[in-house]
């Protein structure tokens, strides 16, 4: 089998020949050369796609099997307990409107205060205390209409007294019922209390 191939050859100027000529050279190769050429050609034609395919495959594999990295995330929920009062001032006035003639004890009540609490702790309680010592008149406290806990009626003193016990993890509220109690025999006067409510572990 013979094949004609055409080649374009540059003829250098220094060879004394004009400019640049294109010479067509017809070369005839024998079958062996052709086979080697074909072999080389087909080898390239096969190897390159295979190489490309392998490369792509590896690339794809690399994309699907990326190296993982991890780190730790630490979350903490600390014990949180908050409390708020709806009002900062309460006035209890014993004027005689509710007094009963012939009785020494006179009283007045107020339920205008609401305590709001929120806690994620177990077994909390609210205590109540006053800064006033001595007191001329008696003030009682009681939690009413509470959404949780167990009310404890207490006479307010400078020693913290339980006001609401057994508060579980919750957000809730309760009304504070103050009862001011005076005896007629004590005469008139004014007691100013700075009442402190404290929510704490019981």
């Amino acid at each position, binding site marked *: 089998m013979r094949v004609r191939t055409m080649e374009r050859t540059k003829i250098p100027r220094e060879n004394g020949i004009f400019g640049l000529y294109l010479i067509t050279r017809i070369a005839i190769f024998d079958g062996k050369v052709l086979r080697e050429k074909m072999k080389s050609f087909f080898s390239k034609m096969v190897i390159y796609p295979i190489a490309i395919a392998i490369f792509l495959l590896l690339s794809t594999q690399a994309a699907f099997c990326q190296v993982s990295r991890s780190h730790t995330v630490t979350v903490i929920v600390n014990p949180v307990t908050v409390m708020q009062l709806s009002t900062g*001032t309460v006035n209890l006035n014993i004027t005689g409107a509710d007094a009963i003639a*012939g009785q020494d004890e006179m009283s007045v009540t107020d339920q205008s205060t609401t305590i709001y609490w929120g806690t994620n702790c177990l077994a909390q309680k609210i205590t109540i205390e006053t800064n006033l010592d001595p007191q001329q008149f008696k003030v009682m406290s009681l939690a009413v209409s509470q959404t949780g806990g167990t009310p404890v009626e207490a006479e307010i003193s400078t020693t913290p007294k339980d006001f609401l016990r057994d508060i579980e993890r919750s957000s809730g509220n309760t009304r504070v019922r103050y009862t001011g109690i005076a005896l007629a025999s004590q005469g008139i*006067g004014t007691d100013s209390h700075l009442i402190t409510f404290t929510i704490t572990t019981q």
Partner: protein
Amino acid sequence: MKKSIMIIALVALSAFAFQMSLAQAANQLVTLEVKVVNKINISGPVSLMIDDAIPGGAGLQPVSDNSTSYNITHNGSAIGKITAAVNSPLPAGIKLELTLASTLGTSTGIQDISNATTAIDVVGGINQGKDATQMITYDFSATPEAGVFASTVKTVTLTVTD
């Protein structure tokens, strides 16, 4: 080094937060004011009727009633008093007298209230406190010269003051 500082800071912050969470407090100003209280009530009513004479021509038989009582609660001054007044005077020869018992103060004894349209003291020196179920005594008398006195309703007002 930085890691250690961070850990220490976190521990300190957590401890602080924990402390904060242990006790939350809220304050409120509560004022208890006891003003002057003077309260009195009276049981009643009372009916007094003269329909007899003293034997021997000594006039009409007076009548008395102590079926009623009063209660007071008083926290003002230690010199409180109870006064009594009648809404309109009685005619001449008709006498209405009033006596109030008292343990908290001092009774002024029998007081003629027949014409007491202006209040008169019946108990004085009332201390702070209460007096319950104290007897009220009415004495009703008339002279024969006053004649027949038709049934008349009188309003007796007792007032406790400082």
